[in-house]
């Protein structure tokens, strides 16, 4: 089966000459459909950089990144935007919902970008809110939702476009322990029921415990790659 994500000898350097730092050093990783993978490692190990690259938000200094079989280096800016919109869902550490839109509208926004007709958008929004357990809270703006609720809206937004993969950078870092676990359970459930692919970067032991595969990064290199 073709992997959803494949990095081949990817390097990403920041700075030049003496100040040059290798955030990623010849990283080759394959993520299959339906995986629930955690990228772990200490701060500065290159977790976020790896997620940036596999999310098409950044380009590697060398090596190749394939998203659903497509080399992102061959895409123009607009093609990459379209690709992210249709194939990748993002969950951010700080939720990053649009503050002036309600929960429903935040979820609807990405489908608007996809050109989904209004009636289907509204139907899908209701479906997503039910999935993440936020029925009845759709008309609230982010400021009137708790951190856990906002992150659940972010999960719903990431899933609304029906992406091939969801990338989450420390999704529970701003949540208390119980809320974080509850959110993880929702994502795990979505992974199992809908076979949605999740890749996390995390420090949290609870995420590591729930992940089926752990990719250990240290100093920009893959130290270990374990499947449970």
């Amino acid at each position, binding site marked *: 089966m073709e992997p959803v994500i494949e990095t081949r000898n990817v390097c990403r350097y920041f700075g030049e000459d003496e100040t040059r730092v290798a955030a990623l050093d010849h990283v080759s990783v394959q993520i299959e459909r339906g995986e629930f993978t955690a990228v772990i490692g200490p701060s500065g190990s290159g977790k*976020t950089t790896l*997620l*940036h690259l596999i*999310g098409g*938000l*950044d380009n590697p200094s060398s090596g190749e990144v394939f998203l659903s079989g497509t080399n992102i280096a061959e895409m123009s*800016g*607009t093609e990459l*935007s*379209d690709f*992210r*919109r*249709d194939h990748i*869902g*993002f*969950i*951010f*550490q*700080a939720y*990053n919902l*649009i*503050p*002036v*839109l309600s929960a429903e*509208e935040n979820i*609807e*926004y*990405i489908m*608007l*970008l*996809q050109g989904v007709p209004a009636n289907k958008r509204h139907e899908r929004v209701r479906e997503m809110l039910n999935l993440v357990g936020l029925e009845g809270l759709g008309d609230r703006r982010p400021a009137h939702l708790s951190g856990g609720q906002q992150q659940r809206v972010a999960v719903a*937004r990431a899933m609304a*476009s029906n992406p091939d993969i969801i*990338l*989450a*950078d*420390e999704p529970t870092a701003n949540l208390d322990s119980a809320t974080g676990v509850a959110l993880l359970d929702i994502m795990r459930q979505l992974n199992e029921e809908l076979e949605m692919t999740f890749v996390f*970067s995390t420090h949290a032991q609870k995420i590591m415990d729930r992940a089926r595969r752990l990719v250990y990064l240290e100093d920009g290199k893959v130290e270990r790659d374990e499947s449970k």
Partner: protein
Amino acid sequence: MLLLKLAWRNLFRNVRRTVLTVMLVGFSLVALILTDGIMIGIQESMVGTITETLAGEAQIHRRGFLDDMDDELYITDPDPIIERVAANEAIAAYAPRVLSAGMITSPYNIAGGLIYGVNADREVSISKIKRAIVEGDYLSGSTRQILLGKPMVELLEVSLGDRIVVTVSEVETGEISQELFRLSGIIEFGVPAMDEGLAFINLDVAQRLVGLDEGIHEIAVRFKNPEDAKNRDHAFYREFNNDEIEALSWLDFSPAVSALIEMANYGTLIIGIVLFLLATLGLINSLFMSIYERIYEFGVAKAIGTTPRGIVGLVMLEAFLIAIVSCVMGSVLGYHVNSWYEANGIPLGSFEVEGVVLQGLYTKVVIEQFITLPFYVVLLVLVAAIYPAIFAARIVPATALQRSL
């Protein structure tokens, strides 16, 4: 709809900044409306003074007459021309005149002046002579009637009913011709040159005095639509311009005022450009502040798939909404300010521009001020928003999201 909602709500994320931006653009529009109102007011006042006081909006003469007011160049058979003028659908009123330089003498003093022989009835629709009478009576066709300006009356040291002798030279023979009048009315146009140097007598008396028989020197004309007077391609001008006679617009016989109006238009343009430039710089600054505050959010928007064009569209939509709100506010306020000054005037006293005395300054409200000017404001705001919009569209998501994915 969602994008519109998003753009609209974004305006209220920093209400103070949005209000200040709207005020900046809106007050610029108010200033522009008022400037335009003042300029139109001055123009209309000047044009009105010129055309309504005496000259009319257009004049027909024997070709070359106006070059040096040679009274030998008169229209010998005016009736066919007058009939055609009267039949012209564009013309509202006309008045035939005889003009001759002459000497005006009283028992106490003597003055030089320009003698106008006028048709008293027809002049009412063309000039302000009747309305300018401050003492005595208007012409009624009586042979001995003469109207003089107040300064000339003071110079001649006469009063109503006193004898006045007018001396001119006959057109054909060059012989001296004199006529005795009794001062029947004192006029005051408010234009010093006119009050000091003009005398008005009845047309038939003037024709006899100057020896013209039925001849006249001038037909002053008023159009139904004053704008037609400025259009030199108008059928009227084509019809009455030939080898014998010429029809001239007030733009031709008052070139200084016409140039001044053109200059005033350039003035409005320059003021408009300066105002808009200031407003534009303020707007660009405001949009950039708004973008910098939301740079992380734009990074997120791009990360989840908003195309650069979508980001440009959003910023432009926000700018468009600011422009619309500013224009509504500016137009409403501009209308009230301009209307107030139109009714009450700007208290500047009376002042003279190119020999034309303007009594106070009254602005003018015209519909174009609330269509054309706001249209330019919207256009300019959109142009001003292009640079910030492109800047926002070029935000690199990975850079904007450095703190997190």
